[in-house]
């Protein structure tokens, strides 16, 4: 079997947030989306480190936006999921679905 790295749990969360946000995906909405879904505070530093790692793997691309006064004159960096990233998310979904089947102990638990 060919050697392929699995997506980490937080990597998957970040990729899913990126897909949901579409063109408006930068640090603030990404971290807010993860916080809303998980109910836990997210460190923006961790989000950026994860995005950087995903970019190095070719799963995410980024582009610099315009600086705004609201951010103290600092530009936003927008992130996009690449085609390879989308394939990896689909693969992770398949893996998770097949693993979830036949695990009645955790069904219905929140």
């Amino acid at each position, binding site marked *: 079997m060919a050697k392929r790295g699995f997506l980490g749990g937080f990597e998957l969360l970040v990729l899913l947030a990126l897909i949901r946000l579409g063109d408006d995906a930068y640090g603030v909405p990404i971290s807010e989306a993860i916080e809303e879904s998980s109910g836990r505070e997210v460190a923006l*530093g*961790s989000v950026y480190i994860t995005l950087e790692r995903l970019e190095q793997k070719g799963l995410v691309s980024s582009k610099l936006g315009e600086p705004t006064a609201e951010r103290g004159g600092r530009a936003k960096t927008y992130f996009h999921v690449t085609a390879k990233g989308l394939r990896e998310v689909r693969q992770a979904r398949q893996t998770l679905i097949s693993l979830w089947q036949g695990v009645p102990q955790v069904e219905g638990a929140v």
Partner: protein
Amino acid sequence: MNAFEPPRLTTWLMQRLSPRQKRESLIGDLVERYRHGRSAGWYRRQAFMVILVGAGTDIRDHLLLAVRALVMCWTALFLLGFFTGAFAPVAVRLGAYRVEIRDTAPSVGLLRDTFRGYHVPWVCRDRMDDRQIAP
């Protein structure tokens, strides 16, 4: 500092200690969230994490440099302690425990011990015993 401006010292520290890549965007994101109602405590916590995560990544990416810096620092401390007698042992009480922070390098007065065994920094945590603790 007014309510609209994030803590300056924290921002200054981040500008110097966080990873260079996308640093400005990251600080901009933190400033934006702060101005949308996050507290100064939240901002400082996030900044601490940025610096911590950045340092961890730097160490992982440049392991050899990190080890070299550690060895240099240890050597400098050893020489400083050896020639000046600094780093005398310190013992403090923390609740029911006695915490003893021993020297990183022996002082001149402990020269004989220097060559008896190699001294390394460590922290001893023993159950408090009044006989062991000076008043």
